[in-house]
């Protein structure tokens, strides 16, 4: 039995299903992300687990206990909100101590645990500060300490880093992962940032229109996306129009051996831009734009199969200029082929 098990969870607003028959499991100590565009139902899912939104149907069990029959205040979950939701009239210490006071923890132990929690997030010197006089990153840490100090059975993070600037966000990602590992707490993260989800999670649930499109390890989901939606949402990707006739797969004016098990007709080929190389022979094209990104080069190449995105590592080699004629080549196994019109 999984630690957290969500089964057939559905939330309808009027006739529209915000979350539609969602089932997922989280193992003890695991870090799982709900990833998807805004409006995909990921935050609604988190709020149903937290108890702030009542599901239409479905069950949620945590550690063998029926969570839906438990009041939100008794669920024992640590939650970090997107807006941090710190108590503005309390300083950092009082904010963190609030949950312990609710549990009736004696004052001396409370003080010790609050100090520990603030030290864990690196805010020992800011104990007396009020939220108003703290930066976004510091407020974020207080919110994390406040959620962790009650020793929750599970940590729910609702877009916790989306209000931070890019550099701080990366630092906090590393720190969040370290803290989660050291505490060993089961964590569910809601985010729309695919890089964040991939960097932090053991597994990702990619959601679209209230449904889980794929539940997999980040590298698996990236390399073997279950659908064109997953492929285009996780990282950059090329979606090429192709056609299977007899034994060959044609993309533009080039042919590959057709993959097995796919009927003849129009297909969509997903191909990661970093899997494409410049070669002597291959799909002919012209470099339309060339961007230098430091560690990488980014090309847009005009071909008979349309505009193709190519990413090359910056290894110090000379790269084609804009306007240069190039030939693009890739391995047949890097392509993922799906019949047009089919779901996957």
């Amino acid at each position, binding site marked *: 039995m999984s630690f957290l098990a969500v089964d057939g969870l559905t939330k309808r607003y009027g006739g529209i299903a915000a979350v539609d028959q969602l089932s997922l499991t989280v193992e003890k100590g695991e870090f799982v992300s709900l990833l998807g565009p805004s409006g995909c139902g990921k935050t609604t899912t988190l709020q149903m687990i937290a108890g702030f939104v009542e599901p239409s149907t479905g069950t949620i069990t945590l550690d063998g206990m029926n969570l839906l029959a438990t009041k939100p*205040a008794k669920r*024992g979950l640590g939650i970090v909100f997107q807006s941090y*939701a710190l108590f*503005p*009239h309390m300083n950092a210490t009082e904010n963190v101590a609030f949950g312990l006071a*609710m549990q009736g923890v004696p004052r001396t132990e409370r003080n010790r645990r609050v100090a520990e929690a603030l030290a864990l997030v690196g805010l020992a010197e800011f104990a007396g500060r009020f939220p108003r006089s703290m930066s976004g990153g510091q407020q974020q840490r207080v919110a994390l300490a406040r959620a962790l100090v009650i020793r929750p059975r599970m940590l729910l993070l609702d877009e916790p880093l989306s209000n931070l600037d890019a550099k701080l966000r990366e630092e906090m990602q590393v720190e969040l992962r370290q803290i989660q590992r050291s505490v060993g707490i089961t964590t569910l993260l809601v985010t729309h940032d695919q890089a964040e989800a991939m960097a932090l999670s053991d597994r990702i649930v990619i959601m679209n229109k209230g449904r889980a499109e794929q539940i997999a390890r980040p590298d698996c989901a990236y390399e073997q996306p279950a659908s064109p939606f997953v492929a285009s949402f996780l990282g950059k990707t090329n979606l090429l129009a192709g056609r299977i006739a007899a034994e060959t797969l044609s993309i533009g004016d080039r042919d590959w051996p057709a993959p097995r098990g796919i009927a003849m007709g129009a297909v969509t080929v997903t191909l990661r831009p970093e899997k494409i190389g410049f070669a002597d022979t291959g799909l002919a094209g012209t470099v339309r734009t060339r961007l230098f990104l430091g560690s990488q080069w980014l090309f847009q190449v005009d071909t008979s199969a349309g505009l193709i995105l190519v990413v090359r590592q910056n290894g110090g080699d000379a790269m084609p200029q804009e306007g240069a004629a190039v030939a693009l080549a890739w391995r047949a196994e890097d392509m993922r082929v799906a019949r047009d019109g089919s779901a996957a």
Partner: protein
Amino acid sequence: MSAATDTGRSGILSTPYLLSAPALLLYAVLLLVPLVATALLSLHSFGIYKGIENVYNLANYRDIFGDSYFYEIFGRTFRIAFLVTVLSALIGAPEAYILNRMRAPWRGIFLLVALGPLLISVISRTLGWALLLGSNGLVNQGLTAAGLISEPLQFMYSETGIVIALTHVLIPLMVISVWASLQRLDPQIENAAISLGAGPLTVLRRIVLPQAMPGILSGGIIVFALSASAFATPAIIGGRRLKVAATLAYDEFLNTLDWPLGAAIAVLLLVANILIIVGCNRLLEKRYAEVFR
């Protein structure tokens, strides 16, 4: 800044005063002049045969401070104002909180209902209360019919009646004020408290109330100041006998024609009002320092 640049910038330095001159002028003509005139008037003396005499002394104030009659009236004025303020806070703050939690169509409708009394003149509202609270009024008839009382309660010409009517008149101002402070509240903060194990009452007392405090306090100041200086409601419900400071000043001006004494009462009412409000504000601001920042 050196003297040289000082003279060079004298034109710039006077600009702010020039720009705010129209407002300052309005302020001076409409507020400062009448106030100073009233204060000067209160220093004159009055005789039945001589009328107002152009002398300056503190005789009026000496009379007021030496007469228990005035103590009684000022005591009553501020007792009423205090009770009205407390009642408005006790009723208005929960009212605003409930309004704030209502859903879309109902919220607007009930907000209008709550603020509706502001659209009706104080006189009509108070006359309405006079009808309700009279010996044969609806309230007494209802209580008698329910068997709760055998004789009609005396609401008219009593402090209770004034407090009830004034609370009704002024409560919308408390609701608006608390409403405004609740609007700024992040709804996730309540969820955060719940997730940390707080029950509904704890959330209200330890999370919502402290954040609504600035609104309750500013509403309280408005309600207190307006009920301490209220004229129409005490005049109608309190009648000729049960006087408060405002009706007393009115009577001195228009019945006794002792303008200087009336002016002295008005000045004392103003000063006492300011002292009480500023004092309470200081106390509460210190207590809830963080929320006010």
